[in-house]
Structures are given as C-alpha cells and as structure tokens.
C-alpha cells in the first residue's frame, strides 16, 4: 500500500518524516514558554525576524562579505543568519520585558513588519537567497538533508529536555514574575536562559524548515493540548503527542494528495485544534457526568 511506504527504511523522504515527528515531539515544549508567558505574538514575530537574518547573510554572501561569503553551504548561511538575528532579539526583548513588565503588541507588530520588509528588500537583487527563502516560506521540510537533520537531532531533544528539567523555574518566572523576584530568583538570568533556549530552537527551525512550520509547531500543539490537559505535567505529554500526530497527519496528507508538506502539517494542526474544540463544545451540552467520564487523566 502506498501510504505504508513512508515507514520503509529506504523511503526517499525519511529525513523529512523524521524531522516532522522530531519537531512535533520537541518544539511544543518550547512553545509553552511563549503561550503561557503570554508572548504568543513574539512567536509570530520571531520566526520572521530570524528569516530577516537568513536574508541578511545571503545578501552578505552575494556582496562578498568575508564571513558571510566564507559560509559555503546554503544551510550554514541560513543557520548563521537565523541565529544571528534570533538570539540577540530574544535577549533584548527579554530584558525589555523585565524592565517594562511586558511587551506591547504594537512593538511586536512593528518588529514583524520591519523584519518582513527588511527581508524583501535584501532579497530584491539576490536570486540565490530569494529561492532559498521562498522554499522556507513554503515549509522546507522535504528538502532537509543529512547534515541539517543531524543538527536537528542533536539540538531539539536537548532543548526539550532542558525545558522539561527546568519547567518549574521557567514557568514560575513567566507566570509569577513578582513572586519569583520577591523569593530572590534572579529574573534577568532566567529570562536570558529562556531567551537563549527559545532563540536557539526557533532560529534553528526557521533556518531549516521556515517560519510557517516553526510557528505552527510552536503554537498549535500547545493550544490543542491546553484543552485536554488537566495539569502542567499532562500538558507536556499531550502537546508532544499532538505535535507528533500533527506531523504524521500532515505528512500522510501531503504524500497521499501531493500537497506542499509544510502547509499540510500546519493545516493538520489547525484541524486538530478545531476538532478538539468542537468536541469539547459538544460535550458542554451533554450531561456533566458523561463529560467527566470522558475526561482523560494521566
């Protein structure tokens, strides 16, 4: 059967499938920091800012700048550019949040627009960069090579483990900032650690698969799982499970109907959230006892 081919070890797009599942497993654990820290718009703006970094390095390479030109592969240029913009931006935003209490939506919207226009201006006379970024816009999952996948496989699980190990401290500084500060927790250090962790994952994902897929994996599993979870602990399990299913469903749909993979994965995630919401809404009309018996506790 055609669908079963994707589980064959010699499957042509094995890297893409494994990367989809790995992202589904790990990225939502980082996305929780954005959603529960009420920085969901940051999750939208940051991939775009990373993309501007990619465009910047491609432009630098085309202009013959030393270190940009020295990066030989498209992947290394994309990764360097993405991290170059993502990490300092997140660190600066984290410090701004600490000083002002929160980021206003207008600032994030402005950062998003500035990054978007900057990206397009840099690409206007850069054919190589334009092609690469166009692929990223469509979700570059299918084009993941062995080198990119090895980087993924090394960094994503490590970041997810760090997010899980320090979840109490991370979630405390995000959701109970005043309490944490009074207790003597060093907020700038923890916000910086969060910025580095989030920036590393977002920068890496944007460089390899693009902003659409990255934002999809950051947000959709977290939002979907929040409607199923009964605790922070079960939320981690549900969001990773949702992410894996979203990746698998998107991949199967893409393979079966010959759809663009990135868009198919994100659409599968949106459909998943929609189904969960509809079922919950429907359950609301039923007897509370039925609702209770259907609620799942891990």
């Amino acid at each position, binding site marked *: 059967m055609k669908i079963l081919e994707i589980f064959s070890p010699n499957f042509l797009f094995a890297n893409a499938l494994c990367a989809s599942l790995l992202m589904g497993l790990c990225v939502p654990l980082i996305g929780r920091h954005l*959603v*529960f820290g*009420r920085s969901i718009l940051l999750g939208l703006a940051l991939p775009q800012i990373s993309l501007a970094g990619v465009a910047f390095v491609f432009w630098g390479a085309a202009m013959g700048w030393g270190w940009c030109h020295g990066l030989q592969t498209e992947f290394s240029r994309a990764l360097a550019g993405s991290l170059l913009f993502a990490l300092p931006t997140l660190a600066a935003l984290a410090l701004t949040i600490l000083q002002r209490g929160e980021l206003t939506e207008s600032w994030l919207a402005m950062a998003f627009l500035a990054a978007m226009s900057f990206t397009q201006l840099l690409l206007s006379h850069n054919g190589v960069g334009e092609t690469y970024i166009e692929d990223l816009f469509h979700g570059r999952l299918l084009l993941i090579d062995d080198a990119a996948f090895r980087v993924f496989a090394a960094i994503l699980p490590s970041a997810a483990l760090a997010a899980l*190990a*320090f979840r*109490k*401290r991370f*979630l*405390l500084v995000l*959701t*109970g900032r*005043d*309490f*944490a*500060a*009074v*207790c*003597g*927790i060093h907020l700038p250090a923890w916000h910086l650690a969060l910025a580095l962790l989030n920036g590393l994952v977002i920068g890496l994902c944007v460089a390899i698969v693009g902003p659409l897929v990255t934002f999809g994996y950051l947000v959709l599993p977290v*939002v979907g799982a*929040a*409607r199923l*979870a*009964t*605790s*922070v*602990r*079960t*939320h981690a399990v549900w969001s990773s499970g949702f992410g894996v299913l979203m990746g698998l469903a998107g991949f199967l749909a893409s393979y079966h109907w010959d759809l663009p993979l990135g868009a198919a994965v994100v659409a599968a995630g949106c459909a998943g959230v929609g189904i969960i919401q509809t079922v919950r809404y429907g359950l609301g009309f039923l007897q509370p006892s039925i609702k209770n018996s259907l609620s799942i506790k891990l």
Partner: protein
Amino acid sequence: MNAPSTLSADNILEFQQARLGYPQRAILERVDFSIPRSSFTVLSGENGSGKTTLLKTIGGLLPLLAGTMASKSTRRGYVPQFDNMDASFPVTAMEMVGMGAAAAFPWWRTIFGGRRQTCREYLRQCQADRFAGQMFSQLSGGQRQRVLLARALAAQPDFLLLDEPTAGVDLETQKILIRLLGHLRRDSGMTVIAIVHHPEIFEGIATHHARVADGAVCMEPWQNGRAS
C-alpha cells in the same frame, strides 16, 4: 540597600530617610520606620496612598529612590493581590505550590525540588488540600488565595508579604486566612506584613499597625484591641 549590620537585633527591617516610588515620581517621600521580628503588621491607607509601593519596595520589586532599607530577612514570600496568569495555563493547585517550593532551592535542585508530599502539607496547612488536583484557573477567588498563600509558604520564607489577602474573598475564607496567618506567626515566628483595607478584621492577630498617608508611614503598636 540591604545592610544587616546597621539593623537593631529586634527588627527584621528598617527604613531610614527613605524615598520610595518610581524613577519618574516618588510616592512616599519620608519613610522612617522599622518592622520588629516575628511581628504581624497591618498596612492601611487610602487608595493611592502608597501601600503597594511600600510593599513592593520591601519585596525588592521596586528600587529605593533614596535613603536606606536594611533587612535581616533571608527569604521572603509574597502573596500578590491578583494573579495575571493565562487562563489556558493548566496548572493545578498542587503544581502551583510545587513551583513555590522549587523557588526555595538553588537552580540545580529545581529539577527534583517541590516534592508532592511536602506540597500537599502546605496545601493542608492552608486548608486547600481538597482541591489540590484542580486547575488553578477553575478555583474561586478565595480558593486561589489559599493556594497562593500555600505557594508562598512553600518557598519557606521568614518574612511574608501579603497584598490585600482578604480582598474579594468570601467571609468563610477570610476567617480561614486570618486564623491561619495568626497560627503561622505564633508557631513559626514568621514576620508578616499585610496590606488591608479593614485593619479591624485582624483583631487579636496583628501586633502593629502602619498607616500610610501624606507620603509618610506612621507605625504604631496595636492598641486597646483596635487599630489606633
């Protein structure tokens, strides 16, 4: 800011010629008062008088604009007036207390810090153990307040700061909270300072009354069974 050597042995905190507020605008111009160790101080004053500014400065949330604040407190706990958590954050009461317990540990111990049994004990102390497994966002105002108090206690403070702990809370919870705070002070020797709008409800528990008015703080012992 904190200089324990200049502090009298009986006090846990002392302000001297302090100016408190925000860099753009001072709220309290002349603050000279001290908080005795193991005391229960109620802080009252009109809206906008600077009560929260004073509490936030004690908690280190606002910097001192001028003067000195000396403290011998090793760890502070804080119960905020409002929690501004995302409604979709599926944290349970137990996990909430676990996060507080983890705040008491050095960062490398937070991985395993906040054991369930210890957290349940803090919830029990605050009579909140029966909703330990419920989501925080689904609790009533009074239940939330008890959980927030349990979280603050889990951080093992010697100085507890409360920002209007009885605001928007039903009468039964008010009584529970007040009784609990009284026990805490008596049994553990913890120093407590609480912003309240009706100091008289702390009759029999409060030892001092600090009135914030006209940019200054007037501290006095609790007298004749009522706030003087």
